[in-house]
């Protein structure tokens, strides 16, 4: 545990759960509870997607198809104004929509009963390792798409508006993933800590308002992460800086 509040420490000690501990390892990579949770979420997401698109209909008849249509269209509507037009938004849609869906699911996994206490179940976004991993993807994707779109001219933005700002610009590029990952991790972890503390005080009813807020926060954080990633990619690929 990184930020062990007294209440949470007591809780953790009571359940004897050590969350970031490796459960097993594949190809030398240790698999912890957050990884197994992510796998579970991925299986659910993919299963729903498969079921929704298996018998797709132009006149939507299944509720699942309706729901996923709503989700994807909402995401697309959020991305379009930032990217400028729908064609561009669709080009980066798979990456950005996956961020939103996986982060949202990860945040909500923390609301499941036993999350953080049972082995193999912990909100992935409540650890800095996972949010940092996501931020690293955003970092590389931003520069990759920037280079791909603008070629060598992409590096010009590091010396703009003034060449002496180069060090500052470079620092900015590294601050972005740091802020992305810390914001997401801090919010989800903090929310879980509060719920755990309230649970330690009075287990019945008291944590419920915080958990309801957690539903809102989970959505907001997934939204913020996706919007910022979109903004970074949009800025990197925009014709005029």
């Amino acid at each position, binding site marked *: 545990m*990184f930020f062990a509040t007294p209440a949470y420490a007591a809780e953790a000690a009571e359940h004897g759960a050590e969350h*970031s501990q*490796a459960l097993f*390892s594949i190809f030398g*990579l*240790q*698999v*912890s509870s*957050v*990884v197994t949770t*992510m*796998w579970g979420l*991925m299986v659910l*997401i*993919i299963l729903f*997607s*498969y079921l*929704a*698109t298996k018998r*797709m209909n*132009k006149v939507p008849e299944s509720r699942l*198809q309706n729901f*996923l*249509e709503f989700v*994807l*269209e909402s995401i*697309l509507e959020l991305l379009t104004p930032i990217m400028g037009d729908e064609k561009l938004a*669709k080009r980066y*849609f*798979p*990456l950005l*929509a*996956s*961020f939103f*869906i*996986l982060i949202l699911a990860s945040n909500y996994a923390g609301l499941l009963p036993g999350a953080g206490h049972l082995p193999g179940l912990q909100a*992935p976004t409540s*650890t*800095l*390792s*996972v*949010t*940092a*991993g*996501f931020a*690293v*993807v955003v970092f590389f994707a931003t520069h990759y798409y920037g280079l791909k779109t603008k070629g060598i001219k992409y590096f010009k933005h590091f010396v703009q508006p003034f060449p002496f700002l180069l060090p500052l610009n470079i620092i900015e590029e590294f601050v972005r993933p740091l802020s992305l990952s810390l914001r997401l991790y801090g919010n989800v972890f903090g929310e879980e800590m509060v719920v755990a503390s309230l649970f330690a005080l009075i287990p019945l009813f008291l944590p419920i308002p915080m958990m309801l807020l957690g539903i809102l926060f989970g959505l907001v954080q997934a939204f913020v992460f996706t919007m910022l990633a979109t903004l970074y990619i949009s800025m990197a690929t925009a014709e005029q800086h």
Partner: protein
Amino acid sequence: MNISIHDMIWAIINFLVLVVILNKFLYKPLLGMLDARKQQIQNRLDEADAERSEAAKMKDEYSRQMQNAKEEAREIIGKAARLAEESKSGIIQDAKDEAAQIMKKAREEIGLEKEKAKAELRNEVASLAVMAAGKVLERSLQVQDHEKMIREFVQKAGDVS
């Protein structure tokens, strides 16, 4: 702060795998279908618009034709009425003419008959006068001698009558 490099690598791998799978099973089919649906709706709307304007055009055309037909009908009726009027007056004129002719002929015939009757009457009166004169004179006159004189008398009497 303590970052597990294993968790981080797993997060990256998991995310990239999810992107690939969702792209295949969710984004491409669903967004493609949404596009297809959008296109279809757009096509239907365009078709409907085209059909509506076509219908409006046809309606205009029909009402114009109707107007033309009405005008034509009115013209035909007017012409027929004029024609009927003309033939009516022609027929009446003909009938009048014929009637006048018949009257004229009748008058002529009547005149002829009258003349004929008058002549007959004159002959009758002449012979009667001869007979009467003979009786009055108690003398038998030679018919041949006096007939001329009597005829003149009758002629005068006829002229007076």
